[in-house]
């Protein structure tokens, strides 16, 4: 194992973490402001990817597709909020889990209805194709670097939005005292719809970015959704800072685990077996990390004000 390889893997972990952050940010924002647990967040991710793929195929431009993914996911989010989610704010988490579980079934089958059963084609735009040579001589895909950059921009953008704008002020107010901002005359229903659509747009953006790198198919949101939940639970539900750190921790742990564990087990077992056992433990690793963190800090690393 060389230093260059280890560095490349670290970068891979970082990039996975950034991808997870894009998902987790919306999820944790929605929970922070509305106290809602949204299992259908992965479906909005899928909506973004499908919208991007369909529009990119139609127009021939990934970038128009990317914009379409934001619009489609935000629109889907707003509609879902108006029709369904709105009725769930006063319910307990059980009802929220169930209703959004039902939404997953509908979104998945509905998408298949519209787009058919085969995965869609979505490729990386020409501008971001290929690999660059990093200091130290390793080659690294441009697109993955672009994802890291996009994640950083989103993180900064969210920070600015929440700390500097009027909307952000209302969001913060909503997080600390829900009744109060209603009493102060802020239209809380509109605020909730806007926040939900914002979270959905973030998920859709992540879906489009990742869809170009992976595959655009029905059910693509579910594995990411569970990882995103792990992230926000580790970080402390409702905390954007927690989501960012949680995402990076999960990304790096998962990547390094998959890379290092088989090699560690190779000291004790023949290579084929070490690969299997190492792979098995690696796939459980982030859940183990999560259990340990929650055992020590039951409300995550950065507990939000309520929750």
């Amino acid at each position, binding site marked *: 194992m060389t230093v260059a390889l280890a560095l490349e893997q670290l970068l891979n972990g970082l990039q996975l973490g950034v991808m997870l952050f894009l998902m987790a940010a919306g999820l944790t924002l929605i*929970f922070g402001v509305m106290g809602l*647990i949204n299992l259908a967040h992965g479906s909005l991710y899928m909506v973004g990817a499908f919208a991007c793929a369909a529009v990119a195929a139609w127009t021939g431009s990934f970038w128009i597709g990317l914009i379409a993914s934001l619009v489609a996911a935000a629109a889907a989010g707003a509609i879902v909020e108006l029709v*369904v989610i709105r*009725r*769930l704010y006063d319910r307990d*988490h*059980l*009802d929220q*889990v*169930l*209703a959004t*579980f*039902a*939404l*997953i*079934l*509908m979104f*998945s*089958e*509905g998408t*298949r*209805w519209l787009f058919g059963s085969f995965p869609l084609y979505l490729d990386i735009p020409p501008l971001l194709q290929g690999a660059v040579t990093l200091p130290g001589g390793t080659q690294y895909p441009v697109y993955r670097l672009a994802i890291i950059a996009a994640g950083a921009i989103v993180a900064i953008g969210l920070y600015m939005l929440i700390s500097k704008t009027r909307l952000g002020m209302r969001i913060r107010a909503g997080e600390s005292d829900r009744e109060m901002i209603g009493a102060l005359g802020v239209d809380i229903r509109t605020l909730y719809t806007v926040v939900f659509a914002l979270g959905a747009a973030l998920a859709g953006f992540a879906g489009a970015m990742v869809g170009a790198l992976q595959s655009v198919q029905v059910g693509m949101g579910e594995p990411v959704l*569970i990882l995103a*939940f*792990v992230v926000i*639970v580790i970080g402390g*539900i409702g905390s954007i800072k927690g989501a960012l750190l949680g995402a990076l921790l999960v990304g790096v742990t998962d990547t390094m685990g998959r890379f290092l564990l088989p090699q560690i087990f190779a000291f004790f077992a023949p290579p084929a077996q070490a690969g*299997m056992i190492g*792979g*098995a433990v690696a*796939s*459980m690793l982030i*859940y*183990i990390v*999560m*259990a340990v963190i*929650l*055992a020590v800090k*039951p*409300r*995550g690393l950065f507990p939000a004000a309520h*929750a």
Partner: protein
Amino acid sequence: MNRENLVNFILAVLLLAVPFAANMAGQPFYVTLATRVAILALAATGLNLALGLGGLVSFGHAAFFGIGGYVAGILATHSFSGEPLLFGLSGTNQMWVIWIVAVLLAGLLGLAIGAISLRTSGVYFIMITLAFAQMVYYFAVSWPAYGGEDGLSILVRNQFPGVMTMRPLGFFLICYVVLLVGIGLFALIRASRFGNALQAARQNEVRVATVGIQPYRIRLTGFAISAMMTGLAGALFADLNRFVSPSMLSWHMSGELIVLIVLGGTGRLFGPLAGAALYVAFEYALGGITERWQFFLGLILLVVVLFARGGLLGLLAGKARHG
């Protein structure tokens, strides 16, 4: 007899009558369907102990369901092949032995998961139980000894003294009796001092603590018992399908178990049975009508959660008593 008891009684009789009628009509498949209802109802009754009485929304009960299934599968495989299991112990194809092992192991796993998970609450509890179930799921998928993702086939159903288990009706009767015992146990626990403490801890934790009861211990005990019952159902489920695989451990399974309870009516004695019957009927009927059945299943669920909060029993038997 109040209205809810009457509805419960009718449900229990119906579940018994349908398979006999189907069997006589030469439609043994409906016996299998009824068996599925009984087993899922038992699993959900187990979960209902934690969720309905204790207010513990476990999103990881598939772990216990799957453990029960794997106990049945692994013991049966070893009995079939004659290879010793652990410490020279051999496998078995006797259901009652399998049940005891399944209940014990599920209970132990429940204690372990509960001990850590119950330190958290609310959404954190939902998510940490999910995480533990995912851990068990990935372990089962990647552990090669017992089939991994492919799962384990049990060629012949396990034995029960005096019953022809391969006959659909015989196996149904076993499951039906076990379900009734499970529901009876649920009723006993709900009425017991322990059950009262468990429900009180859900309603007002502080008050329970001030009268000198530790909510943590009460909940942990409740969680473990809940795991045991779901584990037992898992063992039966493996025997029903003559097959066990990691999909019994998947998070979709955990979600389905919650769905059953809410469909039937949360916290009610016969809620899980009503929910399981409804769910299996939907799945079967919709699957026959359209390829898009999952879409309509989702739609129905959504409507129930949004507009019919008491579930099926709420509709049939009126409001739940506050207990």
